[in-house]
Every structure is written in structure tokens, then in C-alpha cells.
């Protein structure tokens, strides 16, 4: 009898998933462990490998959402009869509401994006590529009006900063953008987080020595882009090892105190906010932290994270400094007990020994779940963080 391919639970809390693409066709041979289809969970899009060897006899769910456990395909010997359970009507992927056509603006018509590809490579002029790079536009989503469908500069200039919505965008009407799974998940989790009793603590740290350290580390490691975030992750990890009671996850019955500092890095990915985790930061060197961080952030932006990348975080750092934000309060990332909001480093006049000096100051705000960690503990931890930031040698 043919084996049933059922939608798997890929992570804690996963209730359903959306099949987006089959990597094999009906009639193809499949080996055990071979990638079979792609699935969009509420966190990531990933490949799912086949649990069975044989021939893909039937695809029951081509595309769309299904609950965990539902049969989506059959694999067996060629010619085998497939017990066809009544296919639950696959929920079609949410369609955008039809919006009435009005006068189309004179920007290039956004037909369904059909980027010119040759062997999977997008055809675009060097100038177009550079402009797309500078503006953060994914060139693969653009339509080329140059010869042979080549994407040229005017195509990039006409594009929006975010990838175009599938439907035509007439001017003058309100757009209704349906929530993606990821959006729904973020909404759900952060609503829960907002309901947790939290308190916030703020300190300002003098970044002089930290900046020197980062600069020197860059010199010593020319192939790795070491950033202040890496240094902060490292420093927080060291602080967490000295304040083990902050390195916890909160659950209704117990506090889970972790042996390692698994630092989550908040990333603004195109699909939404996501927090991949660098594990065991307390035992990594600064360069190693930078490499690991670069890897997960890159994969987050390319929508290539796995479920494992998102698990077991004990502490999160959210850095909005690059947007010029001086200070903010981050929302807790449950079940973690604390999250650190990092602002921009600002050259500030400070009084020192009776004179005014200009110092690079960084504002750090710690949001703490009071159910897991008390005020004094949190303050102590943050004071350690500040001390370590101002004199990184003390963290050794």
C-alpha cells in the first residue's frame, strides 16, 4: 500500500503550514531524504525531505494551507492504487480584494513580475544592478523593458522600495493587504508579550573603548565584518553568565535556566520581524560571533532560516541605532525573560573632571519580564552590561 506523506510539525507551536511548491512531479522517483516540497510555516519557508522512497504517485495538495498531519501526497510502487481520502478543500492562498480600476498612473505598468532570466540568472544591466542594490530592491522582482527583457536603470527607478504587490495598484483607493502567516504569528506572540508585566531599565554607556575594540578587531580580522552588535552580543553573553538568573525562559510552571547564552538578534527581514539565535555566545570569540551573526542575518533576509535557527533563545538584542533612533523600549520576546534595546551612538558633551568633553554615548534599555526576574536583579545585570561595554577588558 502506498505511503502517505503528511504535513509534519516542524517546530514547537506549529499548527499548520502552507505548501508553496513541489520539487518533484507526479511520476518522479523519490529517494528517502530527498527534498520533496517547500512549505511556509509561520516562521520560515523551508524544504521538506521525503520520508519514503518510491515513486510520487499523487500530489493531494498542490498548494495551500493544511493542518499538521494532513495527507498531502502518496509515495509508493508504480501502479499502486492510491486510497484517495476526500481532499479537504485546500484553502486557496488569500487573494487580495479586488479593487476597482481607476486611472492607471504613468509609472511602468506592474504586470505580474516576469524578470528576464537566462539559466536562472536575472538579465539586468550593471547600472540597474547597482541601483537595485543601493535601494534595497530585489532585482528579481522587476520586469525588464530593455532588449530581450533586460532590466535597465529606468525599470529600477520606477520600482517601489518594497517588492510590488501582485495586483495592479491604481491610485486613489485604500489597499487591503491580507495578513501573511508570519504577520499573524508576530501579532499573536507580541500581543501575548504585551500582556506580560514588564519593567524597563535604561543606562547610557561610553562607547570610546568599545569603538576602539571593534576597530582593532576589524583590523585583525579583515575578512569578517565585526559590528557593535557583535560586541554587544558578546558582552551580554558574558554578563548573562554572571547573572544566570536573567538567562532564563519563563513558562507557567517553571523558569528554565539555560547553561548557555543563546542570543537572539532581531532582524527586519522583508517578510517581517524575525529573531534568529546565535547559540553559546559566551564561548565564541568576537570574530566567531560576527561570522555567526552575519550568517543568520543573511539567511533571515533571504528567507532561508530553519526552525532550529529560531529555537532556544534566552536573550534578545534589538538594535535600531542604524536608523538614528536614540532610545526605545523593545517588546519582550517570550518566553525569554529579557530583551535589550540598543539605540544610536551619539557624540554627547559630558562633564568630566570639571571640564566638558565630547564622548560617544550609547543608550541601552532593558525590558524585563517581572514574572521571571525582579527589579534589583535586572538592574544589577544591566549595570554589569554597562560596565563591560565601557571597559570590555573586564568581561574577559
Amino acid at each position, binding site marked *: 500500500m502506498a505511503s502517505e506523506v503528511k504535513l509534519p510539525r516542524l517546530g514547537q507551536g506549529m499548527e499548520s503550514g502552507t505548501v508553496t511548491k513541489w520539487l518533484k512531479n507526479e511520476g518522479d522517483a523519490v529517494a528517502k531524504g530527498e527534498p520533496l516540497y517547500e512549505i511556509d510555516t509561520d516562521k520560515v519557508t523551508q524544504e521538506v525531505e521525503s520520508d519514503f522512497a518510491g515513486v510520487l504517485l499523487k500530489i493531494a495538495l498542490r498548494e495551500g494551507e493544511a493542518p499538521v498531519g494532513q495527507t498531502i501526497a502518496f509515495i509508493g510502487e508504480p501502479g499502486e492504487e492510491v486510497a484517495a481520502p476526500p481532499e479537504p478543500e485546500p484553502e486557496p492562498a488569500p487573494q487580495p480584494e479586488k479593487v476597482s480600476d481607476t486611472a492607471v498612473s504613468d509609472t511602468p505598468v506592474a504586470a505580474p513580475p516576469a524578470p528576464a532570466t537566462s539559466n536562472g540568472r536575472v538579465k539586468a*544591466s*550593471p*547600472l*540597474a*544592478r*547597482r541601483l537595485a542594490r543601493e535601494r534595497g530592491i530585489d532585482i528579481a522582482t522587476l520586469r525588464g*523593458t*530593455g*532588449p530581450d527583457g533586460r532590466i*535597465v*536603470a529606468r525599470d529600477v527607478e520606477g520600482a517601489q522600495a518594497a517588492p510590488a504587490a501582485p495586483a495592479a495598484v491604481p491610485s486613489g483607493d485604500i489597499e487591503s493587504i491580507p495578513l501573511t502567516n508570519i504577520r499573524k504569528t508576530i501579532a499573536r506572540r507580541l500581543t501575548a508579550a504585551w500582556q506580560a508585566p514588564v519593567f524597563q531599565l535604561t543606562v547610557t554607556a561610553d562607547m570610546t573603548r568599545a569603538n576602539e575594540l571593534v576597530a582593532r578587531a576589524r583590523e585583525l580580522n579583515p575578512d569578517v565584518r565585526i559590528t557593535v552588535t557583535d560586541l554587544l552580543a558578546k558582552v551580554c553573553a558574558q554578563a548573562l553568565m554572571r547573572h544566570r538568573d536573567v538567562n532564563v525562559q519563563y513558562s507557567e510552571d517553571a523558569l528554565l535556566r539555560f547553561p548557555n547564552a543563546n542570543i537572539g538578534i532581531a532582524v527586519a527581514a522583508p517578510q517581517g520581524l524575525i529573531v534568529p539565535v546565535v547559540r553559546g555566545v559566551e564561548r565564541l570569540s568576537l570574530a566567531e560571533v560576527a561570522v555567526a551573526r552575519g550568517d543568520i542575518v543573511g539567511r533571515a533576509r533571504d528567507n532561508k532560516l530553519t526552525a532550529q535557527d529560531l529555537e532556544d533563545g534566552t536573550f534578545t538584542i534589538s538594535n535600531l541605532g542604524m536608523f538614528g533612533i536614540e532610545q526605545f523600549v523593545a517588546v519582550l520576546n517570550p518566553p525569554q525573560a529579557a530583551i535589550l534595546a540598543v539605540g544610536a551612538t551619539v557624540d554627547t558633551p559630558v562633564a568630566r573632571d570639571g571640564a566638558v568633553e565630547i564622548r560617544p554615548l550609547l543608550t541601552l534599555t532593558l525590558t524585563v519580564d517581572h514574572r521571571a526576574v525582579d527589579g534589583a536583579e535586572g538592574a544589577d545585570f544591566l549595570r554589569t552590561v554597562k560596565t563591560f561595554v565601557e571597559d570590555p577588558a573586564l568581561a574577559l
Partner: protein
Amino acid sequence: MPELTYREAVRDGIAQAMRADDSVFIMGEDIAEMGGSMGVTQGLLDEFGPERVRNTPISEMAIVGAGIGAAMAGMRPIVEIMYEDFLTLSLEQIVNQAAKHRYMSGGQLTVPLTIRTQGGAGWSPGAQHAQQLEAWLVHIPGLKVAYPSTPEDVRGLLWTSIHDDNPVVLFEHRLLYPVKGEVPEQLEPIPFGKARVVREGTDVTVIAIGPLVHRALDAAKQAEEDGISVEIVDPRTLQPLDEEMLVASVKKTNRAVVAHEAVTRMGFGAEVAAVLQHQAFDYLDAPIERVGAKFTPLAFAPVMEQYVVPHAEDVLAAIRRTVGK
């Protein structure tokens, strides 16, 4: 400003140089009484006499070689090679001797020789009287190469060539000789390695030399009517080449066409395209176009000759391809 034809401008440049410096003299075939096969040196014999305006036998090797020797011994000779095609006969002296004496001697010598020649298609000269060979000469370290396209440029660059301590090959073109142009009252030397913006524009840069500068101007006027704004840059000297200015222009317009009368394949335009591609890679919105002669010797029959050489229409077509109109 006074006006001179290209031919008159060359003559004036030679005459002024000879008046100013006794070590300047000119030799070549039929340049004395006849005044040169293209009439460039008319009148010079009368002014300067047979010692300094020398008819030579038909001996391109010796003409150039004697020029080399006289230059090494402290003169500033100008030798005329009647047709660019005959450069081939003197190439050994130009390439193995003139270009290399300074280097091989470890810097002890200079060879301040100017070789003037003319070439190009027009009036069915046939395959052996019509070539454009600048690509060969720019490939030789030790030589300088100029190819002026206007009376002002040819006079100014000829002066600089004569007074440069390196061997210089200066290309003229037969169809340019009658072309009139304004020249400054006082001769102004033009430095090597400085291109000239012939026409300003924003959509595409046409880099052209010799007669193609003028054909590009025609093409640009037509393109203007279609809303295409064409910038034309004339490098004027091919070695040294004003890469900086060419690259800056292409970075501004994002598109390039390189045009010369010489055969396109493996020509000077290929080098310019490579330079632009390398230094302006992220600024290119279209592949670089090259305009030149088709890959054939030059046929005699006028219809065939016209078919092979590049015209304004070819430049215009190339311009259109770059902007995609």
C-alpha cells in the same frame, strides 16, 4: 578667429615649427616642388630651401631610419609617409628601433621623431591605399600616437609632436584635408592625453576619432530630433589616452559608442571598450557599441567601398541600440 583648412593647418604647424627652430626639418617622397601628394607641404620648399625640405627616394625604411638617426643626433625631423599603408614598409624601424632605443639604452637616448602620414577611404583608392592602422601603433610601448580631427587640433598636436622627445606617429585623413575650421590666432600647443568634448549630451557618449568625429556630429543631430541627447568626445591622442575624461563621460551618460573608420574587429575601439567596461562597469546601462569598417580589405568599386566603411547612419544605429529606441 581665423579659419584654416585642415591641410593649411598642418602646413602652418610645420612652417611655424621650422621658423622657430633650425633643428626642425622635413623629408618625404615628393614633398618638395610638388608640395606632397596631398599638397600639404606646398610652399615650404620656397621658404626653407632644399636642405630642410628634402625629397627622398622611395625608401620608407631609410626615410624613417634616417629620421631616427638625425633625431638621435639632436635634430627634430618630421618625416612624411605618403600613404598610411606604406608605414608597413618602415615598421621595422618604427617598432624595433625608434620605439625601443630609449628603453634599451637604459634611458640614455631620446628619439624626438615625428612621423606624419595619411590614410583612409574615399574616391576608391583601393585596398592598398586606404587603410587605417592606428591599432597597430598604439600597441607598441615607446610610441605616441595622435589622430586629430580638426584644423585646430591638428596644428596644435603637430606642434606638440614635434617638440615631444618621443617618437610620435600622427595620423591625418585625406577626407579631412579640405575641412575648414576655426583656429586660434596664435598657435596653441595641445597636450597629449587630453580629450575634447565635441558636443555635450546626457543619454549616450560617442567616442570618435578622425572622420568619424564629423559623422558622429551628423548622427547626433538626427538623434536629437528623436529626443536622444548625444555627447561626443574626441580623444585626439590615442597614446596616451585620456581615459579619465572618457570614463567620466560614460559614467554621466551610462551608454557608450566607440567609432573609427578602421576595421572594427580587433581595432582601437576594442581597447576603449575594455577600458570603459572595466572602469565604468556599474554605470553601464547597455553593452558598449563599436562602429567601424567591416572586416574586409577595401574594395575598389564605389558601391562596395561605401558599403564597408562606417557612415553617420551606422553611428546613429549604434546610438539607438544603446538607448533601446
